[in-house]
C-alpha cells in the first residue's frame, strides 16, 4: 500500500512539474512471455512506468529517470528504481557529467567487446531490450572536445557487478560447479569501497570523413566473479570473487557505398578462466576479443547486419574448461513497410563452438506515433552452450508501449 502511495505521489509530482519549465517524458510498457514448451508457464510478466525529467539552466542541466515496475514472476523486481540521475555542464570545448548514468562504448550490437563500462543485467538473459540490459553506474565523465578528436576520461568510484538470474527465476543458470563432495557456496567477495578500488577509463574518438576510429583503456574489475574452489575433507567450498582487470581496445567504422564496416578489438590482461588442473580450479590468462561486422543499407527500408566475433585465450592451457577460441556470429535482417509503421526483424545468434542458436523474430507496429504493439518469438536451440542451455526457455511474447 505504501508503494502505491509512493507511486501516486511521484506521478502527481511529475505531472505538476511537467506543467513548469521542466521537460517530462517517459513511457509505460507491459511485457509478457510464455514458454513454448512444457506447461506453457510465464517466463516473464511485467509492467513498468518510466519517468524521465530534464531541466536546463544556461550551460548546466540535470536529468533523472526512474522505473516503477510491477513484476509478476520476479517479485523482487517490483518496486521503484532510480535509473539515472546526473548533472551536466557543457562548455564550448569540454563537458562534464556527474552522477548515475549509462555509458555506452563500442560499435557492436548485442555483443560485449569494448562496451564494458556498464555491467550487464542478465536477469532475463539477453531477451530484454539492449537499453535495459545495461546497468547505470555512478561516475564522473569528462570530455575534452578540441574539434579534431574527442578525449574522454571516466572515473567510477564504486564497483558494480553484473546481475545474473537467481532463485526461482526461469532464466536461472544451471549449476556448473557440481562435485562429488558436499558443496558450500560462499558469499561473493566484492572490492571494498575505497579510492584504490575505484575504476578509471579513457578513450580517444576520431570522427573523420569516411572513417571513425576510437582507442580506449580501462582499469577495472571483472563484472562477473571467478569461482575459486577449495576442498577441505569431503567439503568443496566455492568462493566467488571479483578480480582486477586491465583492458585496451580499438573501434572502427568505415562506410563503403551502401555498406558500413564495423570492427572492435579488445585485449584483456589477467582474466580468470576455469582450469581443471589448478589447485583452486582457476587460472588467469590474457584474452583477445575481436569483432567484424557489416551493415548493408540497400534502400527501400531494408537493413542487413552481419557480425562475427572471436574470443581467443592467449598462451592457452589444455586443461582449461573453456575452448581456446570461442566464435559467435549474428545476423539481423529488418524491413519497414507501411510508411515505416510496421517493422519486421529477425536477429539470429549462432555459437560455433556448441552449435547453439538464439533467434529472435519480432514485429513492431506503430498504431500511432506514441502507441506501439510488439510481438515475437525467442527460439533457443542446441544441447549446450550459452544459448543451447536455454533450449527449454523458447518463448512467445508480446509487448505494448505507450510513450509520452
Amino acid at each position: 500500500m505504501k508503494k502505491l502511495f509512493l507511486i501516486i505521489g511521484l506521478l502527481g509530482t511529475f505531472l505538476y512539474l511537467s506543467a513548469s519549465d521542466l521537460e517530462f517524458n517517459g513511457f509505460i510498457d507491459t511485457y509478457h512471455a510464455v514458454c513454448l514448451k512444457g506447461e506453457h508457464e510465464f517466463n516473464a510478466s511485467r509492467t513498468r512506468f518510466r519517468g524521465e525529467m530534464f531541466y536546463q539552466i544556461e550551460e548546466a542541466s540535470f536529468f533523472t529517470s526512474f522505473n516503477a515496475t510491477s513484476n509478476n514472476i520476479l517479485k523482487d523486481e517490483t518496486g521503484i528504481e532510480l535509473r539515472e540521475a546526473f548533472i551536466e555542464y557543457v562548455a564550448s570545448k569540454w563537458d562534464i557529467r556527474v552522477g548515475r548514468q549509462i555509458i555506452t562504448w563500442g560499435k557492436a550490437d548485442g555483443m560485449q567487446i569494448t562496451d564494458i563500462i556498464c555491467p550487464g543485467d542478465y536477469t532475463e538473459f539477453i531477451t530484454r531490450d539492449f537499453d535495459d540490459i545495461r546497468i547505470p553506474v555512478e561516475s564522473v565523465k569528462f570530455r575534452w572536445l578540441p574539434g579534431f578528436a574527442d578525449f574522454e576520461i571516466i572515473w567510477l568510484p564504486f564497483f558494480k557487478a553484473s546481475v545474473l538470474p537467481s532463485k526461482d527465476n526461469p532464466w536461472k543458470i544451471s549449476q556448473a560447479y557440481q562435485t562429488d563432495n558436499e558443496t558450500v557456496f560462499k558469499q561473493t567477495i566484492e572490492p571494498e569501497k575505497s579510492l584504490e578500488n575505484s575504476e578509471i577509463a579513457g578513450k580517444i574518438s576520431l570522427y573523420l570523413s569516411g572513417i571513425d576510429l576510437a582507442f580506449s583503456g580501462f582499469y577495472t574489475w571483472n563484472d562477473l566473479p571467478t569461482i575459486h574452489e577449495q576442498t577441505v575433507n569431503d567439503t568443496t567450498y566455492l568462493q566467488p570473487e571479483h578480480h582486477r582487470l586491465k583492458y585496451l581496445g580499438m573501434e572502427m567504422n568505415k562506410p563503403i557505398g551502401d555498406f558500413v564496416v564495423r570492427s572492435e578489438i579488445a585485449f584483456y590482461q589477467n582474466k580468470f578462466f576455469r582450469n581443471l588442473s589448478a589447485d583452486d580450479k582457476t587460472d588467469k590468462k590474457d584474452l583477445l576479443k575481436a569483432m567484424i561486422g557489416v551493415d548493408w543499407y540497400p534502400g527501400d527500408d531494408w537493413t542487413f547486419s552481419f557480425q562475427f566475433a572471436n574470443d581467443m585465450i592467449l598462451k592457452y592451457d589444455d586443461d582449461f574448461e573453456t575452448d581456446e577460441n570461442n566464435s559467435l556470429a549474428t545476423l539481423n535482417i529488418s524491413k519497414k513497410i507501411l510508411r515505416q509503421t510496421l517493422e519486421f526483424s529477425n536477429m539470429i545468434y549462432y555459437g560455433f563452438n556448441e552449435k547453439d542458436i538464439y533467434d529472435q523474430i519480432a514485429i513492431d507496429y506503430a498504431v500511432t506515433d506514441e502507441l506501439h504493439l510488439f510481438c515475437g518469438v525467442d527460439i533457443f536451440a542446441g544441447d549446450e552452450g550459452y544459448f543451447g542451455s536455454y533450449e527449454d526457455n523458447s518463448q512467445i511474447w508480446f509487448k505494448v508501449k505507450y510513450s509520452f
Partner: protein
Amino acid sequence: MKKVIVLIVMIVTIFQVVKLQAIELSGRDIMVLVDERDDGNDRRVEMEMILINKRGRKRIRQVLSYNKDYGKDSKTVMIFQKPADVKGTGFLSWEYDDNNKDDDRWLYMPALKKVRRISGSSENDYFMGSDFTYDDMGGRNVDEDTHTLLREEELNEQLCWVVESIPKEKDNMYAKKIVWVRQDVKMSVKVEYYDKLGLMKTLTISNIKQVDGIWTAHEMFMDNKAEKHQTVLKFNKININQDLKDNMFTVSAIERGRLK
C-alpha cells in the same frame, strides 16, 4: 531624326542582348543559379513535418535543424523533438559537393545511448516515413543530373524557367524531374517527379518571404499521387547567419540528445 534612329537601334540592340542572354542560359546554368544563390552561411530552423495518409489521418514530427556551409560543402544536424518515441534522436550529416565522395552520416539513438554510422549513399530512402527522400531534402548535387531548359512560363503570376532534370545514375528512383524555377528569386517553386510509369509526386514550395534579407521558403507540400500520401513541411521559425559554432556539427554534440 538621326537621334531617333540611334535610339531605336540602341533599344533593339539591348533587347537582342537580353534575349540572347536568356537563350544562352542552359538548364545547368539555371540549376547552378539555384544552387549558388545566397541562402546565408548558416541556418536554424524549427521544422514541423505533417504526414497525411489517404484517409486524412495525420502524424506530426517536430525537428530542430541546424545547417552550416563550409565552402561548397555543408553540415547539418537535426534533433527530433516529437513524437515522444523518437525524442532526442539526433542525425548528423556532412554533405560534400564532390560527386565521388559519399556524405558522412551518424544517427544517435537515445534509448541505446549510442551513435551509429549509417551509409551515406542511400539517397533514395524516404526520410522518417515522409514523402521526401534524402535527395529531395536537398542533398543532391547539380551535376548528378542532366538539365535541359524546356521553356519559360508564368506560374502563380511569377515568371519561371521550366527545367527537365534527368538523373545520370541508372538506379535512381526517378526517371526525370520537371522543375519550375522562379526567375526573380532563383528558387525552385514546383517540382514534378516522374518514374518510368509516369508522374509520381508533385512538390509545391510556397510562402516565400525574406528572412534577414534572404529569400526563404516557409512551406513545402509533397503530394505523392502514386501512394496517395502527402507530406507538409512547415518551417516555423527560421534564423539565418547566426554564426553557428562548428562544435554543434559533431558527434559529441548529438550524443547529448539535445543541442546547447
